[in-house]
């Protein structure tokens, strides 16, 4: 069975939502944090509902509704989300009130909207969608887990038109905590210069990307989602190389068949060494692209990468803004996404032209 990406919508720190050219005007950020550019949500959500929604719920709901509209589907067969941190804003609001008010006189709203399944639940509620509904919350492979679930549902013939997405929000508190944990650079940098600084740390990001998956052919389909694989602490570089080769072989492909690899390079020297080494070994003959200078680093950023790959295939071009090394003269037909989060969770996604 072939699985297709019918449509996709991304809200990110770049102009990826709405009628914009495909990453032609890159937004520059100076600092260590990239904030998502918020669309006019009123187009997608009732103003009364909007006031109560936190940032991640708005990003998730708007991206979903737009994705369904693009795919010309009113009612998805299933709704599956991936989020590592969940509804941080509401969680921290409720937690802070517990401490500040010593557990007394607490309003319930923040708690109600703090559960990790709130985004998927709100989408179901707005659509009155009674179908399968699931939420994965596993660190750097939250989105990949959701995607695997969607692909299995299609293969099992349990549902069609599956809405699947990844979303994470950055709040002031989480940015402060993650900075203290050493995830981000110690001095402000430009995202356009992220890979040149050669220092520890990256830039924090956030966003929401949703996809409509189907096993039905359609002229509208953007690309084929050929395969996915996650790896946990794979060990040495040789192990990673072997797993990549095996993953490709399972899809009857070799490295030479891949037109371009999108890697999860983050500008953190402690994490990018894997990509650097692969770029000189297994990936040494292939074209290369990066994306984290556009959306920042966050656990579900691979959803941005999948949005990028699907659109590269649909538009038949590789935007200059993502190129690390590219001599591709024709349109990209096969794209491999390889990302790792903190070297612990690695993922491979294979996207093909139809």
């Amino acid at each position, binding site marked *: 069975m072939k699985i297709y990406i019918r449509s996709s919508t991304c809200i990110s720190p770049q102009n990826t939502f709405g009628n914009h050219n495909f990453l032609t005007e890159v937004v520059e950020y100076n600092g260590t944090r990239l904030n998502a550019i918020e669309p006019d949500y009123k187009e997608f959500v009732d103003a009364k509902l909007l006031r109560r929604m936190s940032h991640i719920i708005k990003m998730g709901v708007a991206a979903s509704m737009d994705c369904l509209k693009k795919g010309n589907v009113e009612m998805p067969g299933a709704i599956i989300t991936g989020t590592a941190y969940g509804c941080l804003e509401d969680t921290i609001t409720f937690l802070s009130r517990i401490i500040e008010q010593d557990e007394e006189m607490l309003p319930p709203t923040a708690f109600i909207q703090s559960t990790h*399944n709130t985004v998927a639940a709100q989408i179901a509620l707005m659509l009155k*969608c009674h179908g399968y509904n699931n939420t994965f919350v*596993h660190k750097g492979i939250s989105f990949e887990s959701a995607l695997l679930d969607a692909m299995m549902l299609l293969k099992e013939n349990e549902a069609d038109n599956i809405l699947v997405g990844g979303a994470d929000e950055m709040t002031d508190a989480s940015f402060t905590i993650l900075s203290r944990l050493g995830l981000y650079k110690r001095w402000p940098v430009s995202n356009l210069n992220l890979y040149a600084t050669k220092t520890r740390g990256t830039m924090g990001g956030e966003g929401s990307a949703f996809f409509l998956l189907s096993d039905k052919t359609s002229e509208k389909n953007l690309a084929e989602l050929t395969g996915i694989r996650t790896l946990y602490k794979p060990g040495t570089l040789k192990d990673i190389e072997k797993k990549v080769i095996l993953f490709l072989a399972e899809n009857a492909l070799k490295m030479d068949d891949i037109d371009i690899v999108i890697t999860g390079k983050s500008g953190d020297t402690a994490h990018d060494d894997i990509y650097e080494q692969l770029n000189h070994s297994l990936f040494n003959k292939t074209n290369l692209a990066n994306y984290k200078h556009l959306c920042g680093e966050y656990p579900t950023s691979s959803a941005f990468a999948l949005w990028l790959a699907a659109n590269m295939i649909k538009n038949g071009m590789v935007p200059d803004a993502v190129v690390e090394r590219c001599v591709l003269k024709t349109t990209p037909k096969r794209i491999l996404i390889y990302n790792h989060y903190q070297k612990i969770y690695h993922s491979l996604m294979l996207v093909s032209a139809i």
Partner: protein
Amino acid sequence: MDMSSSVYIAGLGVISAIGNNVAEHLSAFEREKAGMGDISILDTIHRRKLPVAEVKLDNKQLAAITGLPDDMSRTALLSLVAAREALTDAAIPNRESFRTGFVSANTVGGMDRSEHFFVDFIEDDSKGKLRNVYDHECGSMTQIVADQLGITDFLTTISTACSSSANAIFYGARLIKNDVLDVVIAGGTDALTKFTLNGFNTLMILDKAFCKPFDEHREGLNLGEGAGYLVLISDRVAKTLNKRPYCKLSGYNNSNDAYHQTASSPDGTGSYLAMKGALEKSDLKPADIDYINLHGTGTPNNDSAEGTAIKRIFDPEYPPMSSTKSFTGHTLGASGGIEAVFSVLAIKHGLIYPNLRFETQMNELPFGPEKRFLKDQKINHVMSNSFGFGGNCTSLIFSGTSK
């Protein structure tokens, strides 16, 4: 992929307020010994006001049992106790030769430690011990336990409120059916936290006395904590066991109520679709079900919606049913896992668990739950319900393999 292949249950592990392992739970059921009481471990202003069902071991004791440090989240400590029991119980020969995964669920991850961190952090954001917030994420709990169990092939975490671990179990089964894995430890864990206790308290659905699920005069739920896991195995692995598997997971369904973020629809649409879907998946008729382990939280809203949905499906012949939350309290993200263990044990030992403190049948329903502990019953098919916030409704069906 072979979707028609069976997924068997080879091992069980559970910890809750009524016991630290499977044997202690069976004993507590027979003695009709509930786990609720005054709060003694959780540090909260609600002590002596709201009863909860705490696991009767503090973090130091759990750390000693598990070998984990005692400043680890209680969520992970509870998880490791039950997951390790399940894996030991399964006793799979040559497990290293099989692709093994850990699919665990929880709702608030390392929140118990984050609560300590935030006390200092909200005063001054350069303060707060980072170790207390490092494992805040739900996924961290799963990773900590997988590392202890030596599982590396596949791990993931599900969080769909109170249906979380029921979804983890059937996601695990599907990973086997899709030939991604051969063995999956699946279930969930949740520790009591100030966050959840206060959250449910603001919703005014906590009973100040011990809960009375499915009673006309029920007044809410009691929160509990714990962890419960099943070891799921493929046909191929089942053939290598030196024992018979307990039973198989024959049906499952996840449907959404799509009615309200926290309340169930009056006609229990989501619950109805979940039960109906699970029956269809298992190819069983309502009359084939020998026991229903209810979601039965004890809130007016849940029990009314669940009862209405059961009526729509089972009327006029109702199988025995009960809410074991009358023993364990509502263990949230762990409840689907814990109650799956009870469902499997019901088949294995021919048991029906009593619904404690039930007195008055609900006016709107033509049936009530079983009050007695029954042994030596012929139990072949058990339905287990788990419904949660966000309209997430999941039903599982376990079936014996004797026929």
